[in-house]
């Protein structure tokens, strides 16, 4: 029994990370109806940027955030402004194909520069510290911290979306690009800001990923899939729903892994497929974002 509590707890904590993968995806889809297939690869890119930062500046992963987050945000702004804005429109092929192409480019670019070797960021003692919740039940301090940050990030995104002028601009532009222009909003700029925000979240997720586990250029697509599954399980249009979706996915994977290590990923996919079959709108759907 205690065993299972530990398993579920671990699943919940990793679910927070998945929710962070998903939050950036969800934001972009809400604002401009774009699914960024390169999303997972951008998370991996952020991990490598953090790696380079920590190695060249000699700082810890947490400090590297101060550099990685703004850099990724700028990359996001430029990417949207220069490339992705040109794909937006009625046809769904261009954004899909361009972001797919981007995914391939990022993966192979990272491969060329860093090789396929597995890397990891060292965070020091915090990586092995645990907290005793009660008899027999332990929780890693790092995963707990990451979970807390994930919740904070989602809360912050909610705040931005519903309580700031920027969030109003996002929602208005998503409602109607032409009427938003009448308010003096430049759509190209609004979309670019949304992508910058998304990549800022991606940056945090990337650094956490780098600290938590080994990473290499090829693991991007799996992160995209986890993020995507979290969004669908949780329900489109709701950031808190995305958090719930991440938790469900994390727990499903943890349970699967506990039964048989080879079943971890499959268990997650099964949870996703079951939700898709039985409740395709997700657990906590909102009609619109």
């Amino acid at each position, binding site marked *: 029994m205690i065993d299972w509590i530990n398993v579920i707890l671990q699943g919940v904590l990793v679910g927070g990370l998945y929710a962070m993968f998903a939050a950036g995806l969800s934001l972009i889809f809400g604002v401009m109806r774009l699914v960024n297939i390169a999303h997972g690869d951008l998370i991996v890119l952020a991990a490598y940027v953090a790696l380079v930062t920590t190695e060249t500046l000699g700082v810890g992963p947490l400090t590297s955030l101060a550099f990685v987050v703004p850099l990724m945000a700028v990359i996001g702004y430029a990417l949207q402004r220069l490339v992705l804005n040109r794909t937006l429109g009625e046809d769904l092929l261009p954004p899909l194909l361009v972001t797919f192409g981007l995914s391939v480019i990022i993966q192979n670019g990272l491969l060329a520069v860093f090789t396929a070797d597995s890397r990891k960021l060292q965070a020091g003692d915090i990586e092995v510290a645990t907290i005793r919740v009660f008899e027999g039940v332990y929780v890693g301090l790092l995963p707990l911290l990451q979970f807390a940050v994930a919740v904070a990030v989602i809360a912050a995104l909610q705040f931005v979306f519903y309580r700031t002028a920027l969030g*109003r601009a996002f*929602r208005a532009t*998503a409602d109607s690009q*032409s009427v*938003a*222009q009448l*308010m*003096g909003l430049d759509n190209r700029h609004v979309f670019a800001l949304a992508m910058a925000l998304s990549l800022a979240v991606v940056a945090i997720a990337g650094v956490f990923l780098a600290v938590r586990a080994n990473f290499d250029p090829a693991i991007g697509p799996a992160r995209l899939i986890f993020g995507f599954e979290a969004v669908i399980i949780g329900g489109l249009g709701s950031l808190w729903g995305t958090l719930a979706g991440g938790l469900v996915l994390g727990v499903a994977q943890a349970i699967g892994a506990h039964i048989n290590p080879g079943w971890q990923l499959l268990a997650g996919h099964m949870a996703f497929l079951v939700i898709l079959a039985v409740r395709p709108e997700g657990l906590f759907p909102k009609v*619109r*974002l």
Partner: protein
Amino acid sequence: MSEPPLLAVRHLDAFYGDFQALFDLSVDVQAGEAVAVVGANGAGKSTLLSSIAGLIRTRRDAVTFDGAAIGGTPAHTIAARGIALVPEGRALFPSLTVEENLLIGGQLKRPGYWNLRRVYELFPMLAERAHVPSTALSGGQQQMAAIGRGLMSNPKLLLCDEISLGLAPIVVRDIYVRLPMILAQGTSLMLVEQDVVQALKATQRVYCLQEGRVALAGAAKDLTREAIAAAYFGV
């Protein structure tokens, strides 16, 4: 007519793809004026407003505002210059509350008389429903919110596209009675209307469009019902 007009539209041709909607159209609005543009469905009234507001691309010198040629400028830049469009059908943002719609209207932060408090003074029923989703308002309230949203950017020129559309006459009167207050604060008006009677009462000059051309123009008080009907229907 010693002063140049605030808004001068000259020889405007407007197209939707291959379809030409406006032919060599010229109208203007003097500062402080209220001008009406009337005509049947499809006459090109909304196209005219969309062209002025920048939603439809035009030749550079086809539209001059405040002394500068603005044809072809993107819509968000034209809004920043002081032209606000209240679109046909209200077009409030469904994802935003009433107050959020007003606030985003004030996104540009242009200096002037209008702010949230004063818009609420003009339309008290909006204040009562400030935090309600904009979709929950009645047609008349939505129209007031849309006008209020337009005012929040302190425009020099407010373009109103068919504000009487789909509203009961008493509601329409309720809105029109407030237009003089808007004029008094220094915003000029161009009203596109199908309701000719209301338009004539509220404005100093009238243009009547027919199939993309100006069929009749003159001072509101000088034009007879017969003349307007003839121009409206093209008989």
